Each structure stands twice: as C-alpha cells, then as structure tokens.
C-alpha cells in the first residue's frame, strides 16, 4: 500500500512538471490529484485504524457495542497478553513464539525463493544444456499449478519424507518459484554478454562470475523480489495449516483464527486480542516494505548496467 502511494505521487509530480507552462489547470489537477490520493489513503487506512482503536477496548465492550473509534485504554494489557500469554490447546504458544514462526516462514520463503530462482535462472541463461528452453517453459507452466491445485500430492510427499511439523517441511516445498525464475531470467538476459566474457578472460569461473558479478548487479532485483515474497510467505495460511499440527509451529495468521475460535460455551471470544494480533501480523510486512521500498523503486527506475 505504501508502494502504490509512492508510485502515484511520483507520477503526479511528473505530470505537473510537464504541465508547468500553464499554471491554472496545473493547480486544479494538483488539488484533484491530492483529493484522489487522500481518498485512497482513507479507503486503505480506515479499516486498519478502526481495527487498531478497537483493539484497545476490552472484549466485552466490543462484543456489546461493535467496532470502536476512540482510545479504550486497554492497549498495554491487551498487547502484553497477546505477546506473552500462553494460550492454545496445549497452553504453550505465545504471540511471541508465533511471531517468530511467522518470521521463519516469511524469511525462509523469501530467501529460499530468491536463491532457488536465481540459480535456476543462472543455469537457464548462461549454460548451454540440452532442453534448456524446454525446461524453462516447464518451470514457467508451473504457474498454472498453484499450491491449492496440487495440495494433496504435495502433502503426501512431505508426509512421506517425514517433514510434517518441521520448519523445512513448511518452507522447502514452497520455495520453487516460476515467477522469481522468470524475473531473474529476464534480468540476466539484459546483462550484456561481454561482462561474462570479460570475467572469463579475467579468470573467473562460473561460481565466481555468479558471486562477484551477477549477485551484486542483481541487488535491487533481489530486494524487489524479497519484498513481494516475504509478504506472500508471511501471509501463508492454507499450507501451514496442513503441514503443522503442533501448536509450537503456529504462525500469527493462524493464531488470529485460534483466538476467534474460542467461542465455546458462554465464553466471549477475545476480539480485542484477535485484533491486536492482526495488527501485529501486519507490522513486519509493512516494515519490510518501508525499509526496502527505496531500493525497490530504485530497482525499477534505474539500472546499473
């Protein structure tokens, strides 16, 4: 969301610069642009703000009166509970542990995808082997087979390998990435071939060329893919639900659901805690985007080649 904002504001400043000869219409468009932008911000941030304010009330109030707009004063209490209170069926999971699990999944997912797809793209672009183009297209067609389609066979494979309820079982089956391979392939193809030849003359072997030349050149590309993949990995729900049944492996996204599920008997679900956890679950992806955003845009705009 932060990214789209930056994008559109960059665009508007571009158009206003172009139209600077004529002042009046320019001013009008500027106001109009800002109105549109603010509407966008409101639309996107509104629910989040309401969720946040509501999470500072106690769950009885929320149950009785619905979403809240003010400051409920239970902020510290609620967030402390979410982070440190041991909950769940076994009473072993805390919010902190789930955050950690989510981080492991998000990072493993993003880094794994980058490593695997860079290596695959490197092989496809720089090595002549039989059926290279064919294998690329095979990789590419896996886009047509998202996880949801092949979930049963995938589960069976992981189960037979005894990787249920492990981090590797959670991450490894997800890290093959056709999109990543495709992006890196396009990028490598745009790197002038002479660079590889110069490196060969300079005595760099395949590994050295990859490590010394290609990886540094791909930095912005890697940052861009990292952002996207981290967010996707962090938000995984279906796959972790299947792969991990032990609560020690629960991620934040699953934790939210768990809290909401407590509607057994007369218990009122801890709405405030669920909302607080949702806020927490949103924080790291937002941080990643804010931190890497400059590199991301730089990667899209300028190319150091």
């Amino acid at each position, binding site marked *: 969301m932060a990214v789209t904002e930056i994008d559109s504001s960059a665009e508007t400043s571009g158009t206003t610069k172009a139209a600077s000869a004529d002042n009046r219409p320019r001013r009008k468009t500027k106001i109009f642009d800002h109105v549109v932008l603010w509407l966008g911000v409101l639309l996107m941030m509104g629910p989040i703000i309401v969720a946040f304010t509501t999470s500072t009330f106690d769950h009885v109030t929320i149950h009785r009166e619905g979403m809240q707009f003010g400051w409920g004063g239970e902020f510290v209490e609620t967030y402390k509970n979410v982070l440190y209170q041991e909950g769940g069926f076994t009473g072993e999971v805390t919010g902190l542990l789930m955050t950690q699990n989510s981080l492991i999944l998000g990072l493993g997912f993003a880094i794994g995808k980058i490593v695997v797809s860079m290596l695959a793209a490197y092989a496809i672009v720089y090595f002549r082997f039989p059926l290279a183009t064919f294998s690329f297209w095979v990789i590419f067609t896996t886009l047509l087979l998202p996880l949801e389609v092949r979930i049963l066979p995938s589960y069976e494979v992981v189960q037979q390998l005894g990787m249920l309820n492990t981090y590797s079982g959670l991450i490894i089956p997800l890290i093959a990435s056709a999109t990543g391979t495709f992006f890196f392939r396009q990028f490598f193809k745009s790197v002038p071939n*002479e660079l590889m030849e110069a490196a060969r003359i300079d005595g760099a072997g395949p590994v050295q060329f990859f490590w010394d030349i290609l990886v540094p050149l791909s930095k912005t590309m890697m940052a861009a893919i990292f952002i996207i993949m981290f967010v996707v990995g962090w938000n995984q729900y279906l796959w972790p639900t299947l792969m991990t049944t032990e609560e020690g492996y629960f991620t934040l996204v699953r934790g939210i659901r768990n809290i909401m599920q407590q509607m057994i008997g007369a218990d009122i679900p801890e709405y405030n805690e669920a909302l607080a956890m949702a806020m927490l679950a949103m924080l790291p992806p937002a941080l990643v985007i804010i931190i890497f955003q400059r590199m991301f845009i730089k990667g899209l705009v300028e190319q150091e080649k």
Partner: protein
Amino acid sequence: MTTLRIRNAIKQYPNGAQAVKGVSVDVEDGELVVFVGPSGCGKSTLLRMVAGLEEVTDGEIELNGRVVNNLEPADRNIAMVFQNYALYPHMSVRKNLAYGLKNRGTPSDEIDRKVEEAGALLQISEFLDRKPSQLSGGQRQRVAMGRAIVRNPAIFLFDEPLSNLDAKLRNQMRLEIKKLQRRLDTAAIYVTHDQVEAMTLADRIVVLNNGMVEQIGTPTEVYSRPATTFVASFIGAPPMNLIPGELSKGQLHIGAHSMPMNSAHAGPVTFGFRPERAHMNGAASGLAVEIGVIEELGAHRLIHGRVGDHEVTVAQDAELPPPDGRMMLAFNEQDTHLFDPDTGARV
C-alpha cells in the same frame, strides 16, 4: 619471432552459418595488425576465436609457439578490450583493474603497484576510486585498456574499441592506442570496419570479406596495390573508381577512348583509378568525364561525373579552378589498376 599464428581457421556456428572460412594470419612480435572489413564479414568471430571466446571449428591458433585451441581464455595470456568496454558496473575502477589479477592469485602489493602504474600510464589515477558510471566515454575506454594492460598479455585484442565515442575523441584515442601499443611493444590485433582507423593504426592490414582474407599487407600496399576490386573499393575514401573496359594489344579501350597499357593480358577487364590520382591536364585527349555535382571540402574538392554509364569521382586541389562541363583525365602508369571482371582479382 611470431607471437600469433592463425592457421586455416574455420568457424561454423551451431546454426550452420560459416563465419570464418579458412583464414591464415601471422602476427609478429610488437606488431599491430588490423582486421578490417564490412559488418558481418567475420572479423569479430576471428578475434573471439583467438581470445578463446568462440570454439575453433577447424584449424589452429598458436600463441607464443603453443597451440591454444583448447585453452580457456584466462589461460591464453591474452587481453581484450570490448566495444562497450564491459567494465564491471558495481566495482570501482581500481577493482575493475585488479579483478583479473586477484583471480590469478597475484599478491596484493603487486596488484596495487600494477594498478597504480596502469592508472598513471593512462592518466586515470584520479578516477581510481570512482565507479564506471561516473566516468565519461573516453575515461571508460581508458579503464578498459587499463584492465588489459595490467595483465601483461602476450597480445592485445581490440574489438571496435572506439565506435562508441564521438568523432573527435575517436581520433584522439586512436592516436593514443597506437602510442601505447608502441610503448608497451606488445603485439595487438585491432578489429574495425572503419578503413581510416585501419590505415592510420596498422602495421599490417588484413582485409576480410565474407569470412575470407582478401588481402594482407601494409597500409601502403593495400592502398596502392589492392589485390581485388573488393579491397580497391573498401580501402580509401572516396573509394577507387572502377570502370569496365577492354584490353587488347597493349591498349585499354573504354568506350571511344583508348590508352596504352603495359599489360600482356587481353579481353574484358575492370579498370581502376583512385580519385586523387588522376590528372586534369587540360589537354584535348584523355578519358572524358561528364561533370555532374561538385563538392567543396575545403582543402580539396570532389568532382562527381560520368564516364559513359559509370559514375566516377575525382579529387582536385581546391586551389585550382573548378572544371566545367567536361574534363579529360590522364594517369600515371603506376596509378592504374586492372582487375579481372569475373573474379575481381588483380591482373
């Protein structure tokens, strides 16, 4: 001694295209040999075969007495300068120069010394810590040459290194390359499609056409005794005039005109003369040219005209009064060239 011997080199690309069709060239120690020819004639391919970047389909590449056909580029003791410089964009100039040395395990104090030396030689010392993107075209060109120099190669390979520069800088760098090569006294092959570059730089020129050698010789030889009509029309600007004629009994007939020609050959020939080697003697006899357009170039002028159906160009000193309507040309014996009209070879 001979630094490089190319023996009957053939290159066939996997798609079946034959880019080099049996070329043999020797490069002597300290010699600068220029491969020149039109675009697509195979000069880059030949150079890349020497570098080891293209496999040799057939024939031999021998460097310093050792056949290198199957050696990796890094093991051949060559250095190459690319047209687009191919500098590593993320490394400083210093690292660009040092990279090859580092990969060969050169001790770091020696690397530093060599980099400083090359930097001083090429006047890029003050840029050593900049990135290539912060340099001008000419400076990048120097860095590319620096990267070649630090390796102390047996031979330098240049593939159209100046074509990305503007005209003025190109002339300047051309001179510098020549000076540098003389100073280092290292053999070099320089590939270009620009015949001016070829003439000014070369100790010897190899004129390539369609994957084959048309002529090998010094610039003077190639200019004054072209072996084929191709060389005649490729070397020299404007190119040599070529007109069909008929030779019999020591007389060359072109249209109604005939002139004595010291040749035993008989039959149809292609007659060639250089624009700058024809006299307008004002006499009533000679090869008659109908004058068309005249171009003033400052020091001299180009007179475009026709002999029968054939376009010819004559260069004239700008001090002389421009001719009008029609002119008569006469030639010195050594400035006339005869070629076989079918094969294009000199007769």
